[in-house]
């Protein structure tokens, strides 16, 4: 199946995109309309959120006999035989050997591991159904006017079959990111998903601005990564100079008005900047760029981030690591190594996880594979508790949802998983998943196929289509 290797997807996309850009140049006069449309969509979505009812039932639940990982600031790790109290869909308390409150619904964890619902720091969930089908992928624009202004929130599909699947693997939150854009280096803005049944899966929109620089993408800068950095800096300069009320844009502007307005807003908000970079030189440039424009830096990929771990720590940068990507895949990733996560964490860098897995694990196995990836990081020296942080509190804080998710701290959304084993073993699975205190179904398209074709059914005379 080799055609699906990791970077080929991006590189092929670049190739096809270059022809389509030409085809769409004549539509540039649509920009103002587009901008207006986006504003309308934004206000429409705000109305929708206001009408959304919190699905959590007004009840109290107590998970008893839990081997709990509360992930709270005060806790130093695991609490054995803990009682986790949830009220109205939020955490109330986690205490060892505590009695369940009177009237609470009691769930016995039988000494099994209990964690907050997990979070994957980079996926395309909600933006992809079948990776090879253009009509089901919405995570990137490789032609047209949108660069920085591309915003994935409008394309989210809450009915994707991937969502129940990753939820059944214990993932309740995920960053869903833009992958590429027609712009020189800016991909657009990502969102955090709350993976929950129902139409409302958007947790927070515009959580970060995404860009990418490196050898594979250098063509977009005219053939040099130096040009890519210069174009990025120019884009930020134009964003800074943009004055929404002024008549007429500055002379010689490379960014169109839609993108420059988005950049202006991002810079003003000090929106985190996710830079997809691998080579050490590019990571160091990323630090300078983020510093110069006062944006918190998140390095995505960062195969050679371990080479400048102290620098990243000093600048409070975070890294989204793929612990499976331990090979010198290309000239940008020569320094890739299996113990990157351990080195970065030791140096004081905030780490989070993603996993590409030939792009297959990225979204379709975003729950199972990210646990395996975290386990591999532990196998290569990362302390266990730090791996769990990288799946919960770290991405919650980095992507700005720490006020309502990430740990079992009082008042936070009660996303909870009871595991049948060690959650960092990919062969383990959830026994119970709660989303805001409500049990989530673990029935997925895969489990239905499993049940339909179970070996014990092979004697059935009627074809499988008659089975559930």
């Amino acid at each position, binding site marked *: 199946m080799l055609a*699906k290797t990791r970077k080929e997807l991006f590189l092929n996309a670049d190739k096809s995109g270059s022809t389509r850009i030409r085809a769409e140049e004549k539509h540039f006069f649509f920009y103002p309309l587009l901008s207006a449309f986006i504003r309308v969509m934004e206000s429409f979505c705000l109305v929708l959120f206001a009408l959304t009812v919190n699905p959590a039932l007004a009840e109290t639940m107590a998970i008893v006999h839990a081997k709990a990982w509360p992930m709270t600031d005060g806790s130093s790790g695991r609490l054995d035989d803990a009682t986790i109290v949830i009220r109205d869909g939020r955490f109330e308390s986690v205490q060892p050997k505590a009695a369940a409150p009177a009237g609470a619904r009691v769930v016995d964890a039988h000494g099994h591991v209990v964690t907050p619902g997990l979070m994957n720091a980079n996926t395309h969930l909600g933006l992809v159904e079948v990776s090879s089908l253009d009509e089901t992928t919405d995570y990137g624009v490789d032609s047209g006017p949108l660069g920085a202004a591309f915003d994935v929130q409008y394309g989210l599909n809450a009915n994707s079959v991937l969502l129940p699947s990753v939820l059944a693997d214990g993932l309740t939150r995920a960053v869903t990111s833009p992958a590429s854009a027609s712009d020189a280096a800016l991909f657009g803005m990502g969102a955090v998903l709350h993976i929950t049944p129902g139409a409302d899966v958007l947790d927070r929109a515009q959580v970060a601005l995404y860009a990418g620089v490196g050898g594979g993408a250098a063509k977009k800068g005219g053939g040099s990564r130096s040009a890519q950095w210069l174009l990025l800096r120019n884009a930020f300069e134009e964003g800074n100079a943009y004055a929404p009320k002024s008549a007429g844009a500055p002379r010689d502007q490379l960014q169109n008005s839609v993108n420059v307005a988005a950049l202006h807003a991002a810079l003003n908000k000090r929106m985190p900047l996710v830079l997809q970079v691998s080579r050490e030189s590019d990571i160091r440039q990323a630090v300078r760029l983020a510093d110069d424009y006062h944006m918190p830096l998140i390095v995505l990929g960062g195969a050679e981030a371990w080479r400048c771990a102290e620098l990243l720590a000093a600048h409070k940068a975070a890294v989204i690591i793929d612990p499976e990507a331990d090979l*010198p895949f290309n000239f940008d990733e020569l320094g890739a190594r299996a113990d990157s996560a351990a080195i970065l964490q030791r140096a004081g860098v905030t780490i989070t996880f993603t996993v590409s897995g030939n792009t297959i694990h990225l979204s379709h196995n975003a729950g199972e594979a990210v646990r395996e990836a975290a386990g591999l990081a532990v196998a290569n020296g990362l302390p266990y508790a730090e791996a769990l942080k990288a799946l919960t509190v770290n991405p919650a804080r980095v992507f700005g949802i720490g006020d309502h998710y990430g740990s079992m701290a009082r008042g936070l959304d009660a996303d909870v998983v009871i595991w049948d084993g060690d959650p960092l073993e990919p*062969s383990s699975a959830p026994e119970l998943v709660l989303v805001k205190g409500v049990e989530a179904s673990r029935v997925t398209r895969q489990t239905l196929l499993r049940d339909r074709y179970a070996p014990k059914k092979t004697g059935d005379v009627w074809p499988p289509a008659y089975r559930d």
Partner: protein
Amino acid sequence: MKLAAALLAIIGAAAPFSGPVAKDKDDEHKHHEHGPKAPLPWKTDPFPSTYAPLPRADTLITDATVLDGAGHRLEHASVLLRDGKVAAIGAQIAAPSGAKTIDAHGRWITPGIIDVHSHDGDFALPFTSLDLASGDTNESTDPITANVWAEHSITVQDPSFARALAGGVTTLQILPGSTNLVGGRSVVVKNVPATTVQAMKFPGAPYGMKMACGENPKNNYGAKGRFPSTRMGNVAGVRAAFADAAAYRQKWVDYESGNEDKRPDDDLKKDTLAGAIDGDIRVQWHCYRADDMATLFDVAKEAGFHISAFHHAVEAYKIPQLFVRNNTCAVVWSDWWGYKMEALDGIRENAAFVDAGGACVTLHSDSPWLGQRLAIEAGKAYAAGRRAGLDLAEEHAIAWITSNPAKVLGLEAKIGSLEPGKNADAVIWSGDPFSVYTHADQVFIDGALVYDRADPARRPRADFELGQPAMPPPPVKAGGHAG
């Protein structure tokens, strides 16, 4: 070199190969007078293996949990590797004089892992713009390229080989890619660092022939306005190729038996296809969907060849009985799904369900990343089967990455289990091999310790990795000597 020549002679006697063929006219004339005129071309190997085992010591590994690949689990057991073979396995084995002893208390031993679907070497790292323009994996210029051989694309200095070795992989089948109906010949290699591909080739291993069904061939050629552009076109293309090859094969058989004097014209494409019909070359077919595979079982029956394995086989769980009936293996991943339409129905119980149906199942990588972690793949597939209520044991599931892939390659008499007389390919694991936390501590191929996690001197690195400032510094070797 003498050892290599001797080994070749030994293995050549038992193998379908008869060494390089002399095809000059004098030679042909001589055959004409004294018997067969020439060996059938698909029974020859013009690129013979020069593999020689690396220096080895007889080794007794003691006090380990052993999964022998033949269905047994032994606790606190010993394994004796002697003269490159498994000599004994059991509770109490005395160390022969001169044998090295390794205390494996708390550790596990399995046979060497076999990856039957690798592109290491022909999809060599680093991947460059040169590869993007024209890579070495697919000769995609024609739907039938049975004439190309994967071994001629292999970059032996691909760092992925050593990484797979660190994951316990001792034998690999390197396949051409999957854009063609017939992609070419595979090659089976021992995962030993070498400067030539011949020095990696597994002596006596049958060749494979890579084929592909479904989306890849029809999309690749259809997009170019060429045949085939449909699934029915795929099938027609395969049937036509085999019909041609059958006629060609008959000409050679008639010529060899003396019934026909005129030497058939050489045809490298038809050689490989004729070899597949004869069973000398094993058919390794990339195919995802149950209905596609069912059709191809019939195609094979019509054309008179045997399908060794369907690779990727995402829907094998829907038709396990067809795999049993055709004596074909399902080669699968633990959890890949959804990246293309024909992979939409992938389930994690695939391997366990096919196994429960009584068919041979094997896990594979198709990826240099996954190729380092096949034991974890087996662990995931095993756990999914257990969770679905199947009564599976680890000593059974380990076969999915050891003795079953050996069958896929036709090498079950030599590798795949730790039974006396088989090649001493073995892995000592730091713990349960199915766990994400476990490392391969030591890896043996033909009794030679070719990888040792604790000894920098036994951790091979490819030429490309030398002197690269970006790469992690090499581990310091013991003894304080330079280099």
